[in-house]
């Protein structure tokens, strides 16, 4: 049976006929080989238009369909659905964009018309080479693995468990709660009652839908959205728990404090009573803020931004917790002198300003300082700094450093295992830092909390809830997944097994079959980006719907 191609030009209201002579276009297209019909219609994406198109496909017995209209981003899916309803394989359809790419960009009607004809000819010549592709379905597990039992991980687990999902919560240390559970007080109300966080942890531990693995690490993860195989290992060499299968992974590995600072500059480890913020939190949690000799400090320096320059980013929460420390110190009797050494204050939340103003009222001294050096002098701590061009110094009895937040140790190992990228700072990289901040670039993997960079507790909780929402909307109970259809395929007889494609695949969709000596595409993971096609030195890889032949024919017509 020879091909019967139907070409339909959509007017898109006045958008297209104002700039393109559609009758002229139809005149040029109609006599082309295999074109059975070439017609125009007011608005093909309307309900009437879709019905018209479906009727045409059936009555004209079309084998291929070309729609010249708007951008495929607007309505490709719409017309593919029409094809499906009319009994035509939706991949035997090609959309030609004559609105954005012709009508809207050429000032001369004749030029726009000429280009529209070219593009439609290109579409016709490629559509005859299209293969009828099939949409596959993949069974998916709705269960979820959460890596990291800090506040973000616990919140994720609770949100998902609340929707009857089985959650595997893996925590490296032997307690849930992470850094949030180690704090002495919580802002903004200076509450010392940590019950709220403890309650969350207890809920997570007692929830029958959550399996908590404390003292465990992920040994290996393989698979893809809907089907990840996970194995754990227990620290201390005890036998590992069983393997399990999940549909999605949430990376909530949190952060660590930077500890590579220079002891000659910060005095840390060399001078008594120079402590880090987390050490201060521990003192605060125990209710005893004391110097090494057991007496309360009469003056304290809070030093911001330790490592901001070296790391190249602001850790977001240090200004605020340093203010929290200041208040706490001022609460004790007798209240010590408190100096805040800062370079820029970062107080973005709506309640932050009050905390700052209140601190000023209580006599906390804010010193804008550069080149801070902590020196030991006669049992006291001398903070030397530069204020503009003046060299200044203050003597105190205790100094609290606010080191930068850095990626949790082993982030790179987890990243390699999951095949997801880290950014320049070493934190996990989001699919898009603004528009998709809780997704990793690979389907089925999500990031919540400080794993993707410094965050406050409320931000981490928001991210945990967002990641849960994403998972709930992707992995629906009892539903299968529809993977990308236009995937890459490898001609095994041409593949030399050089494995260049493995290096360029962003999604980790290609693996090497050592027995046959060829690369293999996992169609469930492949997103059809075409990187491997371009990189293959042997030309063994092609992309369905973007074969060399299809592209060649299409480009040739467009350039004719």
């Amino acid at each position, binding site marked *: 049976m020879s091909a019967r191609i139907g070409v339909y030009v959509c007017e898109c209201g006045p958008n297209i006929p104002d700039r393109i002579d559609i009758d002229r276009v139809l005149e040029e297209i109609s006599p082309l080989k295999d074109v059975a019909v070439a017609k125009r219609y007011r608005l093909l994406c309307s309900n009437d238009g879709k019905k018209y198109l479906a009727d045409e496909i059936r009555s004209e017995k079309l084998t291929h369909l070309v729609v010249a209209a708007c951008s495929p981003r607007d309505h490709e899916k719409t017309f593919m659905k029409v094809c499906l309803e009319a009994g035509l394989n939706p991949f035997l359809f090609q959309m030609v964009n004559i609105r954005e790419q012709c009508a809207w960009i050429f000032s001369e009607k004749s030029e726009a018309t000429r280009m529209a004809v070219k593009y439609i000819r290109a579409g016709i010549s490629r559509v005859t080479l299209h293969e009828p592709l099939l949409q596959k379905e993949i069974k998916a597990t709705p269960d979820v693995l959460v890596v990291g039992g800090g506040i973000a991980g616990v919140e994720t687990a609770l949100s998902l468990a609340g929707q009857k999902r089985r959650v595997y919560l893996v925590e490296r240390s032997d307690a849930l709660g992470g850094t949030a559970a180690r704090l002495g007080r919580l802002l903004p109300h200076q509450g010392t009652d940590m019950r709220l966080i403890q309650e969350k942890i207890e809920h997570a531990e007692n929830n029958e839908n959550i399996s908590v693995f404390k003292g465990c690490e992920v040994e290996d993860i393989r698979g893809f959205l809907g089907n990840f195989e996970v194995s754990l290992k227990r620290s201390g060499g005890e036998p590992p728990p069983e393997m399990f299968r999940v549909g999605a992974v949430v990376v909530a590995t949190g952060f660590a404090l930077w500890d590579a600072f220079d002891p000659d500059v910060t005095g840390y480890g060399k001078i008594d009573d120079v402590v880090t913020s987390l050490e201060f939190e521990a003192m605060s949690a125990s209710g005893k803020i004391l110097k090494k000799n057991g007496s309360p400090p009469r003056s304290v320096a809070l030093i911001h931004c330790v490592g901001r320059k070296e790391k190249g980013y602001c850790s977001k929460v240090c200004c605020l917790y340093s203010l929290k420390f200041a208040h706490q110190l001022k609460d004790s009797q007798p209240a010590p002198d408190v100096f805040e050494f800062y370079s820029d204050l970062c107080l973005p939340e709506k309640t932050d300003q009050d905390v700052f103003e209140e601190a000023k009222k209580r006599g906390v001294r804010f010193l804008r300082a550069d080149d801070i050096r902590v020196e030991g002098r006669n049992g006291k701590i001398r903070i030397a700094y530069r204020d503009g061009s003046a060299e200044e110094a203050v003597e105190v009895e205790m100094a609290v450093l606010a080191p930068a937040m850095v990626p949790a140790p082993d982030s790179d190992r987890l990243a390699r295992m999951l095949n997801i990228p880290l950014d320049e700072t070493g934190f996990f990289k989001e699919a898009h830092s603004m528009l998709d901040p809780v997704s990793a670039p690979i389907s089925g993997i999500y990031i919540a909390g400080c794993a993707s960079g410094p965050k406050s507790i409320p931000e981490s909780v928001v991210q945990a809830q967002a990641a849960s929402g994403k998972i709930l909307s992707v992995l629906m109970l009892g539903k299968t997944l529809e993977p990308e259809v236009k995937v890459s395929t490898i001609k095994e*007889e*041409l*593949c030399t097994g*050089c494995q*260049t494609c493995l290096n360029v695949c962003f999604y980790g969709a290609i693996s090497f079959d050592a027995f046959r000596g060829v690369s293999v595409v996992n169609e469930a993971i492949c997103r059809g980006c075409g990187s491997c096609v371009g990189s293959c*030195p042997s*030309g063994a890889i092609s992309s369905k719907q973007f074969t060399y032949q299809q592209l060649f024919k299409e480009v040739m017509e467009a350039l004719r």
Partner: protein
Amino acid sequence: MTPHQERTGPGAVPAQAAFLPAPEGTKKAVTDFLKTLMDQGGLDALLVPVEVPDTPFHAWVMVKKSEVLDKAHPLPPVMSVQGGRALSSLTKHGTPWLHIAAVMRPCEARAAVELAKLKQVRLDNVVLITIDCPGALPLAEYVADPEKGQERYKTVADTWHENEFLRPACARCHRFSLTGLEDGPSEGPAPDDAPASVDIHIGLLGEDQNGILLLPVTPSGAEILKKTGLEADRPTAGWESRVRDLLKKKKEKRQAAHEEFRKDITGLDRFLTVFDPCINCHNCMNVCPVCYCQQCYFDTQTQFCTSSVYMDRARKRGALRFPPDPLLFHLGRMSHMVLSCVSCGACEDACPVSIPVGKVFSWVADETQPAFGYSAGTDRGDPLPLQNFLKEEFCEIETPSACGQAQSTEVKENA
């Protein structure tokens, strides 16, 4: 141009090497060494060129019995099959469970290293041994008159690159000794992590012509030498300075030849003239060690269009040559493999119409490989530019604005 990565430096030149006296000539000494290696080096087999009985030719042979080695020589008068290719056919389909040594010319070993990066050779269980190479004769001349060829090759082996018989690729060769030596500093010991492409190198150019030097380049090379009972106690400084002098001379000669050639080939017209005699036999591709595709695109029908397309093109140009686009094959091949080109000259040897293919390719290789901070076959650990994507790569070309002032000045300086 800003190299996209730092080259780590030269091949390690060990300060001391084992010495093997050669009272009956270096060829015999090399054979003796190979036998010792076979018997005491803990190796299962040797891959080495062996004389084909009753012919003037050598073939690559995997030797299991040491008496066969009497007829073996890693420096046959011509290079008929490139050693990299031979090793690929032996090891491509999986790591050999045998522990073997492959003894070859430096350019052949460089091809093997490139092929290893392309997973066409497995070096896991292979000891790579190279030898100071006096060059080879043009294949066609040798085939036409083998007797004369063998006579000439005696001169070649004695005169060390100062004779007129060498094939063009060898006459221009500046990497005929331990690979990496030509790029490295001339003084000071090699760093421990210096890249190495081979395990053992056989030095023939020592001051003492009465013996050969056996240089343990890598720890595994050293271990094998140790097993053979040869003590590495002879300083290599004399050999090294002699080699460096010769390499320097040859490098200047090579650069001068390339500069001269640039005049002959620059511009599309001249370029076409150089490739005009091409008969589309694709011999250059078939013998090239680093052309490793199962099937070349240019050997398929996909490249040909329908006659109406050709008619269109003929209409535009006035006339069209057939088969069309002969140059496309050479340019396509070049864009695929020139970053891995080891300048072995196999392509040139195989060209029946004497196109200087090797000259074109090694010239382009000399210009392009440094742009990627790459040197084909020098360092096993240095990833292929094709497989190594860096964010800052060539940013001075792609996004000059994002590149920053510092780098753009650098470009100017180097330009």
